[in-house]
């Protein structure tokens, strides 16, 4: 489902009637929350594993990935609230891109840390976070395309 491309841009949402806009925003929010669900779940699972098994000395980047994903979720819930009458592409970029960039940057550092530490067992989970972040970015790019 997350591979499905959006057919409307942020600009054209304002031209829809109330019922269509509500339906479209609910669908869009669902699409965006699906990769976020994976990012949050994998980062929380890795935090549980790291804390229980002490596999990492420095958990700062893992906490940052989780925190950035939570901020993205908060923003997406607000911006794509069906009560939101108008969506603005620059505003979406401004509010979402910094968190997504932060998430990708911290995850990339973690991957390096895991590779150096020989934690190959968990590398695939970080790679899945990378993949989900790429999907999220592609969905947002589709939506903000004008």
């Amino acid at each position: 489902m997350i591979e499905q491309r959006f057919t409307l841009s942020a600009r054209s949402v304002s031209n829809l009637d109330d019922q269509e806009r509500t339906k479209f925003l609910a669908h869009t929010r669902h699409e965006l929350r699906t990769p976020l669900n994976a990012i949050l779940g994998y980062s929380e699972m890795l935090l549980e594993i790291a804390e229980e098994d002490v596999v990492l000395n420095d958990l700062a980047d893992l906490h940052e990935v989780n925190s950035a994903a939570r901020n993205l979720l908060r923003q997406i819930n607000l911006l794509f609230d069906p009560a939101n009458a108008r969506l603005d592409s620059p505003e979406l970029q401004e509010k979402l891109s910094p968190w997504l960039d932060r998430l990708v940057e911290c995850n990339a550092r973690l991957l390096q840390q895991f590779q150096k530490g020989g934690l190959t067992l968990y590398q695939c989970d970080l790679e899945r976070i990378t993949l989900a972040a790429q999907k999220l970015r592609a969905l947002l790019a589709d939506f903000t395309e004008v």
Partner: protein
Amino acid sequence: MPKILLVEDNEMNRDMLSRRLERKGYTVLLALDGRQGVEMASSEAPDLILMDMSLPVLDGWEATRRLKNAEATRAIPVIALTAHAMSGDREKALEAGCDDYDVKPIEMPRLLDKIQALLTAPSAQ
């Protein structure tokens, strides 16, 4: 340990949630769509079903209706999972026969509490 059937079409979310449940000691069975979920509920007799609602082949609402209409599976508790989080989603899931409802992204402690509550409810004994 209790056996949970997870019906979820998204590969990443299926992998992540099943591993998190296994880490908590549950045995997890996987179904990829609603029809497979209904078939596995009948053949595997799980203690509880986690049902994504936006599923291919047969959606979660229809799959739950079929489970609750069948003698062999009607007593199995079903928790609906959805990423929509719209007002009315909960009522729609309960009307289809779901015993409880939770939203994605999953808050694991909240979901575990709901699972535990249904597994220890008198009707589940």
